[in-house]
């Protein structure tokens, strides 16, 4: 079955893209420059004095108000609207946004486009600064040990019930602290491993209290963390939840017998699964939400439809309640080829998720016919990294080399990044080390982009000779030091991803022949990859480090942080890190230094934190725990296909899971001209 499928995939790709290859030159001449625009985006108006005093609404809602079925718009929005200055102009109401999705597991799709986003704080369009979002303001108290969240007065859930501090207390006491719903506390609610609490101050004020200073808190509220609104609800996270609605499914408020009956009637094994289902933004159309659009037909049907939230707190600078677009319709695509072909044919109004960079030439060719424009949104991170498993112990000799800095550096010097960039990124990427884009606030300096990350075969060979791998066999490959034949290294890759890890690894295999390294490329199925990383069976693995540009909210591709990973730098060190040294194995000194700095950063003011961030990246680049290959390319959701009649579209947007791109560009301000 597996071989049959991989063969099929190969045929699909080759057959379908033979045309693409032929016009590859076209893309290169179009080049990086014309497709990557200026970073821009809408802005949140935080000055209450500049907020509009009168409000307007979509015609359908106005009709409902007239019919007496809905309160007037000013009442629905409340006293403190969340004002967004659209990127270019005030838009018009109406229209349906058509796009595709790939099934119930693709729920990120809807959160990225349509949730608003509903974070208490959120990033400005540069992705660097956290600004108030659903929260009207955030105030630090007690030297960072307490944070006062001010809510918007009169703001309402999508069913018209008030959004107040009770919704925070309910989430904290009855969801977060309920062992059945959430057996383990979240790191986002803790500083230095010590859990914080949420207190009600008054109806519209909540206090998050911690035992130690938690300076990172605003960023944690802004990023895609456990405190980032209703997308986390499926795992009982979020920071708040609609208490008035969910109480009817919670054992603290309903008798056991009655709740059991409710679960049984809905065909769930237990109240827990019923509750999780009812609290799911994408699955339950009845769930009160705070997002710009809300689910109308759920994600587990062939069409996932989202409609405007009549109680949306988002407004533009002219007082128009957002969103402008009436409806978002995501149709199920049985596979990615169909999804891409539909995008090429212009059947989607806006698509970036699942759009394949390899098909860029075909997209460009059909721009006029499909009446759309192609934009590239390069990420700020590395699209292809190679992780060494620094805890690999199945073969002590290999483990020793992986832990030798000069071995890792030499391998990095043996990669011809330009060739890879031209072949797989059509020249749109940036070759270099793992450090994030130069403009990132934690970037340690431009010299680190190239550190150990340029092609230098002579130097690489010298280094490998020097560390004790000078002996070669008849084919020119280096021999193991223990005399057991050739030094063979295996790299694990996954197929069917945004980046063609397997094919690129094959190219690196060819390149490493010149430095006498025998690399074996092994493509595995996803579940197997997870199992092998957890069981410490992975040697090298290819992946990307998206999210790492937000070093502190997304650290798993900087140092060993997650056990459940498709690529690991060392599972023993993950355990050591999370158990405060009780389990696992102690990391080597420089890695330990890196981890210490990361931990420390949460409790210090921003200026100090930035310095710590730079230190962390400097260590990472010097030690080459992870090889950076090509980055800042548009491979992961960075090829954007947008209809020409859609307005307020940025020419380039910040592309990151932490920013829920395109959420950072506030799709609620997109409209049809």
């Amino acid at each position, binding site marked *: 079955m597996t071989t049959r499928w991989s063969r*099929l995939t190969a*045929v*699909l790709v080759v*057959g*379908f893209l033979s045309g693409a290859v032929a016009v590859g030159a076209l893309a290169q001449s179009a080049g990086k420059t014309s497709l990557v625009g200026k970073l821009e985006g809408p802005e949140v108006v935080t000055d209450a004095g500049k907020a509009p005093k009168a409000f307007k609404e979509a015609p359908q809602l106005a009709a409902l108000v007239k019919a007496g079925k809905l309160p007037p718009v000013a009442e629905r929005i409340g006293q403190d609207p969340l004002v967004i200055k659209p990127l270019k102009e005030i838009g018009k109401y109406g229209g349906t946004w*058509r796009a595709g999705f790939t*099934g*119930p*597991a*693709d729920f*990120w799709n809807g959160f990225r486009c349509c949730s608003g986003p509903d974070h208490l704080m959120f990033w400005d369009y540069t992705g660097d600064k956290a600004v108030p979002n659903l929260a009207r303001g955030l105030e630090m108290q007690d030297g960072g040990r307490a944070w006062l969240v001010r809510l918007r007065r009169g703001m309402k859930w999508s069913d018209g019930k008030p959004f107040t501090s009770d919704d925070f207390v309910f989430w904290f006491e009855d969801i977060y602290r309920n062992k059945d719903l959430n*057996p*383990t506390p979240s790191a986002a609610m803790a500083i230095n491993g010590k859990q914080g609490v949420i207190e009600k101050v008054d109806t519209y004020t909540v206090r998050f209290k911690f035992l130690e200073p938690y300076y990172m808190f605003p960023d944690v509220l802004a990023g*895609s963390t456990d405190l980032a609104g209703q997308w986390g609800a499926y*795992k009982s996270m979020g920071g708040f939840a609609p208490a008035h609605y969910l109480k009817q499914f919670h054992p603290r408020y309903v008798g056991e017998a009655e709740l059991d009956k409710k679960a049984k009637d809905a*065909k769930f094994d*237990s109240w827990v*699964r019923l509750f*999780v*289902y009812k609290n799911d933004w994408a*699955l339950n159309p009845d769930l009160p939400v705070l997002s710009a659009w809300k689910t109308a*037909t759920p994600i*587990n*049907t*062939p*069409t996932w*439809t989202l409609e405007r939230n009549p109680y949306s707190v988002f407004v533009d600078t002219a007082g128009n309640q957002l969103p402008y677009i009436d409806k978002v*319709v995501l*149709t*199920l*695509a*049985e*596979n990615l*080829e*169909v999804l891409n*072909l*539909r995008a*090429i*044919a212009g*059947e989607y109004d806006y698509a970036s998720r699942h759009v394949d960079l390899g098909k860029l030439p075909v997209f460009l060719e059909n721009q006029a016919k499909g009446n759309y424009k192609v934009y590239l949104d390069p990420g700020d991170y590395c699209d292809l990294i190679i992780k060494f498993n620094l805890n690999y112990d199945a073969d002590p000799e290999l483990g020793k080399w992986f832990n030798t800095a000069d071995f890792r550096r030499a391998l990095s010097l043996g990669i011809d990044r330009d060739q890879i960039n031209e072949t797989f990124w059509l020249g749109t990427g940036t070759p270099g080390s793992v450090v994030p884009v130069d403009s990132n606030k934690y970037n340690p300096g431009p010299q680190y982009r190239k550190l150990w990350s340029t092609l230098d075969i002579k130097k690489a060979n010298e280094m490998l000779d020097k560390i004790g791998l000078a002996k070669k066999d008849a084919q020119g490959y280096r021999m193991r030091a223990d005399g057991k034949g050739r030094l063979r290294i295996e790299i694990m890759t*996954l197929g069917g*991803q945004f980046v063609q890890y397997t094919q690129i690894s094959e190219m690196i295999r060819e390149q490493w022949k010149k430095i006498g390294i025998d690399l074996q490329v092994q493509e595995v*199925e*996803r*579940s*197997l*990859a*997870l*199992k092998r990383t957890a069981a410490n069976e992975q040697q090298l693995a290819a992946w990307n480090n*998206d*999210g790492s540009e937000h070093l502190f909210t997304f650290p*798993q591709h900087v140092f060993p942080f*997650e*056990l*459940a*990973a*498709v690529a690991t730098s060392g599972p023993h060190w993950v355990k050591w890190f999370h158990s405060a040294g009780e389990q696992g194995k102690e990391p080597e000194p420089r890695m330990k230094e890196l981890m210490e700095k990361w931990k420390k950063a949460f409790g210090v003011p921003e200026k100090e934190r930035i310095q710590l961030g730079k230190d962390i990246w400097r260590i990472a680049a010097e030690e080459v725990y992870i090889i950076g290959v090509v980055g800042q390319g548009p491979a*992961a*959701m960075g090829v954007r296909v947008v209809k020409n009649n859609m307005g307020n579209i940025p020419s380039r947007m910040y592309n990151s*899971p932490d920013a829920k791109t395109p959420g950072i560009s506030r799709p609620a301000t997109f409209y049809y001209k």
Partner: protein
Amino acid sequence: MLAYVGRRVLLAVFTVWAISVLSFAIIQLPPGDYVTSYIAQMASSGSVVTEEEAQNLRIQYGLGQPIYVQYLKWMKLVVRGDFGQSMEWKRPVIEVIGDRLWLTVVISVAALILTWVLALPIGIYSAVRQYSPGDYLATFVGFIGLAVPNFLLALVLLYLGFVLFNAHIGGLFTPELQDAPWSAARAWDLAKHLPIPALILGLAGTAQQVRIMRANLLDELRKPYVVTARSKGLSELRVILKYPVRMALNPFASTIGYTLPYIVSGSIIVSLVLGLPTVGPLLLKALIAQDMFLAGTIVLLLGVMTVIGTLLSDILLVWIDPRIRIEET
């Protein structure tokens, strides 16, 4: 005859049970479970599931229990006609399959009718006019139909349809009518989308059936009873249709066993390529996601269909071919 049917039915029930055990075991074979594939899927879309969350999910879905406990739990549901909840779709399995089942049947039946309507006359013609230009043409087209993988054909037609005719890509409905309630417009929309998938699905089958019909009929045409019939002065058409064609139909009856499961699953690969909302892609996804109850139910359904189909064709053969009847008794 009755004892024969009875024996077959008993055997069929046992086979279905064995299939249910096997299918459940096979789905468990790949490493990991629904939660691992879920984590992997999250990882590829830039999200992270922590070890704690994973454990929590496992408890919720009852995945920590031994496999036989999970199987017994499922069987208890199946006996009651409830097939459990799909882990991925978070809806009852019956609903998830039900959504797609009848559409699958429509496409498969359309393809089947197309196959037989084309294959039988062409096969007969090829045999009767052996080595005529028409036979050569049918043979040539037939071999091409057999040799070209139909998913490739699907891709080519899809692309040509878009480039030349600006046709809607994939699916069985235009987006506007996807969720509309049934109406004349929606039925017409379906009818408009049907020919391409039916043609692609039917083509390989047609080629095969033409070859089978031709070969069988050629065997029969040379037999003495045909000469006898002819010498009795029957018209040529009657001679051929009444005796040898009837004999040559035997293989068609015996393939019903495979046809029935095909009707409910559709072709997985072609459905995937054409983006058809049939049961096939659902099964593939369920297997990849290790969505136990959904995959198990579909495999069970296919198993039951195969068993029923085989049973039917056994009985049918006994009925149309007296020689089998005699051997059996």
